[in-house]
Structure formats: structure tokens, C-alpha cells
């Protein structure tokens, strides 16, 4: 089975030893979305403002709202255009206590709505060094902590990233 981590922020050379078939390195395979972009790389549309996201959904590859805002219009549009939301694990690792509980709560609610509306999502590490990387088993375990079933977490690191990368 092929596992993917579509967003890491360092030159992760030994990704195959960690169990991944491909990783998306920021700046090389993945870049930020810009209105006049021309490159073929994957584009991550990241904004806390849903009204900024909605008109640009067709032209991006991945979407991330750091606040996990429950804008049903955006989530439905993402499902319609077969785009996926990115759920990075790094903010969970970097926080603790009530802040972490708050992030988990918002993410769980968001993922419940995504499952209900048939919108895809991927789990990524957004690691900036080797110690922040998470192997497939760990990403699946974190997905389960976010309210997903084992199969849903597995799909978020196998089928969906594969489709996004066009493989």
C-alpha cells in the first residue's frame, strides 16, 4: 500500500525508510496559492477567511482553514470540484492543554461535516525536522483521535493524496 505525506517543510530525504511512497516538500512539490500562478506544482490555498477561499477553490489543489470554520458552502464546493482539505498535525503537537483540546474539538467537528458532505481530506505532518515527522501508523492513530475511523484515516493518507497528486 502506498502512503503519502503531502506537506513537509524540510528536505525529507529518508521518507522511504519512514514508510512513505512520496512526500510533498514545500517549495519543491507544493507551494502557496497565488491568483496569477503558472507553475505545475500542487497549490495550497490557506486562509482563515471563507469568502477568500470560495471563489478560488477550482484553481487550487489543497485547502486549509486554520480555524476549521464550518462554512457549508465552502465544504460543499470542495466536494463538487473534488478538492481536499489539509489537516496538519503539527499545530496539535505544538500546543498543549486547553489550546490543544480546542484545536481537536474544532477539527473533529469539521471532519464530521466533511464526512457527511462527502468532502475529501488528507492528514499531513507539516514537519520542519525529522522529529516532527509522523509515520503512517502514527498519522492513522492521530486521525482516530480526531474522530475518524481506521478506514477513513487510512484513506486520508493513501487514496486521497494519490488522487490529488494525479498518480
Amino acid at each position, binding site marked *: 500500500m502506498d502512503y503519502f505525506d503531502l506537506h513537509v517543510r524540510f528536505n525529507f530525504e529518508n521518507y522511504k525508510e519512514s514508510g512513505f511512497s512520496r512526500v510533498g516538500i514545500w517549495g519543491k512539490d507544493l507551494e502557496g496559492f497565488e491568483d496569477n500562478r503558472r507553475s505545475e506544482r500542487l497549490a495550497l490555498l490557506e486562509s482563515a477567511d471563507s469568502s477568500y477561499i470560495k471563489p478560488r477553490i477550482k484553481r487550487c489543489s489543497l485547502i486549509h482553514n486554520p480555524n476549521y470554520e464550518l462554512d457549508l458552502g465552502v465544504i460543499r464546493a470542495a466536494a463538487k470540484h473534488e478538492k481536499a482539505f489539509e489537516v496538519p498535525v503539527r499545530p496539535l503537537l505544538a500546543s498543549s492543554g486547553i489550546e490543544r483540546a480546542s484545536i481537536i474539538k474544532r477539527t473533529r467537528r469539521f471532519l464530521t461535516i466533511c464526512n457527511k458532505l462527502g468532502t475529501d481530506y488528507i492528514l499531513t505532518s507539516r514537519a520542519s525536522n525529522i*522529529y516532527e515527522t*509522523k509515520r503512517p501508523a502514527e498519522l492513522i492513530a492521530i486521525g*482516530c483521535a480526531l474522530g475518524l475511523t481506521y478506514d477513513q484515516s487510512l484513506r486520508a493518507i493513501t487514496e486521497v493524496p494519490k488522487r490529488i497528486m494525479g498518480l
Partner: protein
Amino acid sequence: MSVKPTMRDKRRYVSFMVEAESPVSEKEVFEAVLGSILSFLGELGYSKANPKPMKFESSTGFGILRCAATETDSVRSSLAFLSKINGKRAAIRLLSNSGSIRKLKKNFKS
């Protein structure tokens, strides 16, 4: 009088590997692991999970933790959230879980 086997708490053993920027001792690892489980699951969740350190090899970083069978997924999630051991950057790599320690040790050696 001991508890009947059918009424006994069912246990699972979770194996993991520690990757840290500098060598860590068994005491440091298990303090961090149990602390991570406590902070993630809370006091009630910790009591249900009933984690207990079993074994840790400093040379290889291989460790085994025992927990309640019904809470294995929660314990594994808690381990995945651990990012520091005694102030040093570290990561816990989840290996496998089993009903017996012998099988885990055998899998690790192979």
C-alpha cells in the same frame, strides 16, 4: 482469592521505538509517555487505560507499554502526540500491539 480469567481485565502490549536528538534513559522515556497519556486522556481516561511501563532498551530505543485492551487506540494516539522527552526533541514510532509480550519481542528481533 484471585479473579476468574473471564472476569479479569484484558490487556494489550504496545511496542514503540524512541527517536531522540540525544540518548534518553528508561525513566525519562516512561515519565514522558505516562505524562503524555495523562495530559491527552485526562485522569478518568488514564484510569481506564491503566498504562504500565514494561520494558525499555536504551541501546535500541525499543520499548513496551501495557494498557487495557479497550483503550489501546487511545493510548496509541497519546503516544503519537509526544514530541519532547525531558526537554529534548523526540518522536515515538509506533510499532505494533499484541496480547503477549513474547510475540512483540520476537517481531522486534526479526
